[in-house]
């Protein structure tokens, strides 16, 4: 069973990776573990125009899988698979699966997370970009839900590009009473995030900075209200792929790989004909 599981896991990882490679058409800048514009674990207000679809894989080491996202009863490595779609110029949706292969016989495929980003303000010369993030209520296991408001500003200098982000994550979330499936709306109630396990991720003021000395290479530092993290990232193949490695508090290593491309493309026969 374990062997089968491991085989399955490596199969998923390999096919996932190959899929990402295959789909590489256009890529863009930095994304966090959930495949959303962000640093390592925090979301920022960066907005990707023209790259509507993104796939990502993120690895979270066991030691930090509790602190950061999910205070489950056991600590296990987490594989985060996610897909992001920019539905409009002001709304983006993200869906992620938090798969814990070592305990999948106890928790199944793991927690699933659906959340939205709304662009409230475009970045201007003196104004930062502002984004509101929202997780709809209804999850049976809302450990990864996060609701936040974040501002991001870019600065171009002769030394490279700097980016600063500052946000506030809601310490409360909407809890759905599991026993009361038929009274979905009535069963919703506000609860402190910390009361669901000991979840302190994105509860309060968070922020980070990133620095890109070269157009394909950058480093970032962040505080996610639970841990301080630092990492480096590279944008490969004309920015088709983003690879990022980082540490949680300088103690454990994590990484994510991300890919984005445009959904505005033509059918193959038409493309070929127009090329002729």
């Amino acid at each position, binding site marked *: 069973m374990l062997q089968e599981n491991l085989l399955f896991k490596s199969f998923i990882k390999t096919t996932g990776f190959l899929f990402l490679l295959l789909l590489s058409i256009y890529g863009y800048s930095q994304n966090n573990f959930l495949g959303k514009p962000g640093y390592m674990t925090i979301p920022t207000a960066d907005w990707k125009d023209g790259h509507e679809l993104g796939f990502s894989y993120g690895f979270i080491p066991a030691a930090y899988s509790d602190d950061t996202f999910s205070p489950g009863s056991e600590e296990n490595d987490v594989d985060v698979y996610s897909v992001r779609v920019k539905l409009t110029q002001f709304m983006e949706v993200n869906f992620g699966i938090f798969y814990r292969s070592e305990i999948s016989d106890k928790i*199944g495929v793991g927690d699933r997370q659906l959340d939205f980003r709304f662009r409230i303000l475009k970045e201007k010369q003196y104004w930062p970009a502002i984004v509101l993030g929202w997780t709809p209520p209804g999850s049976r296991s809302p450990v990864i839900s996060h609701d936040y408001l974040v501002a991001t500003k870019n600065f171009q200098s002769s030394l490279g590009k700097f980016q600063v982000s500052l946000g506030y994550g809601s310490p409360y979330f909407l809890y759905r009473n599991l026993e009361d499936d*038929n009274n979905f709306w009535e069963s919703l109630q506000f609860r402190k995030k910390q009361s669901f396990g000991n979840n302190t991720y994105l509860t309060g003021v968070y922020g980070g900075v990133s620095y890109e000395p070269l157009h394909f290479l950058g480093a970032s530092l962040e505080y996610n209200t639970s841990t301080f993290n630092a990492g480096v990232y590279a944008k490969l193949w004309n920015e088709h792929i983003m690879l990022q490695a980082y540490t949680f508090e300088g103690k454990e290593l994590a990484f994510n790989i991300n890919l984005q491309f445009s959904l505005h493309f033509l059918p193959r026969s*038409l493309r070929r004909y127009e090329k002729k």
Partner: protein
Amino acid sequence: MKRNNVLFVLFFLITLAFSGQELEKALYDEGFENVLIEEKEDTLKIFFEFREFRSPYHSMRFANDIVSSFVEGKHIEWIPLHHNVPIGKYNADSYNFNTLSSADLEFYNANNRPFKNYRFNIRIRPFVAARFGYYSSPFQTVFDAIVDTRIYLAKGLSAQTGLVIPIQNSLNNTSMESRVAPSMISYFTQFKPGHFANISYGTYHNDRYGLDVQYRYGLPSKNWSVGIEAGLTGFYYEDGFRDVIFSNMSKVHFLADIEYHLPIENLNVRASVGRFIYEDFGGRVDLIKQFGLVDVGLFGTYTQNGATAGFQFAIPIFPGNIFKTKKVQLRTTEEFRWEYTYNNEDRVGLKYRMGAPRLVDVLRQYRVDFIQSLKEQ
């Protein structure tokens, strides 16, 4: 002199006929079917069906590319067909829409050749069903390859059948033997401008068979449309080719919906209410974004059986055309649609998959607003 004039006119007519045939052939060679050219003074009205693409925008753009080397100084109107039925006239430059005149329909009815003007179209498509629930086996999936075809029998009347080749199944007890794919007789019609109906009788996915009726009103030039989906169905089970069991056709479902195409960003909002296939009353709200080749949608459902939410997407499967000859085309499907719902165990607001795109999903592609926005990109 008079004789010369007659000769000149004759020569001119022959040239015209020749170029018309050449154009028909050029379009047919690229995969267009049932190409019929109606010539009126300085206007060419060109009927065609193009099954390889989901969106008529792409097929009209393709046709524009081809026609540019044949026709000069003529005004062109494209009349795309769906299941052998003309939808309406689109101006080749502006993509403005016009309904068909009775003369257009007469011309079409007189020249439509359901057998002769079509290729034997073989379509390959995947069938995927998945459940993420169970602990012992977190990803339970069914993955089948389906090879099927649709043959036009008369105007709007078609038959679809094919073969299911199971590749993987860890989800249910359906046998791994090959079996007959969803097979149905369908009749599609536009009985008045903007009034579309599709009636099918046959087997569908999700073990359903029976009568399926869809009606939709909405001109492609308008942003509103309303529709009804209803059916009288039962369950069936196939074990290879030998063993097929049908239950009584006793389940009734009916849904009424209204859809609005927002004037920005190609977003559509659709609200449906009624009785779903597990006979639960309730409603569903969809938000659907059309990117062109790809649709992505979010939805929420609330019925007697509970509440759920999820997403769906529709994509063409690469590469499209695999090969085509004069009589046969082998291609991958123009539309693969998949839906994820959060509580996929409960039977909340479910529908069966038909094995062919639903009327609402087909007609959404014909909206002028959407087509014109693609042109601008």
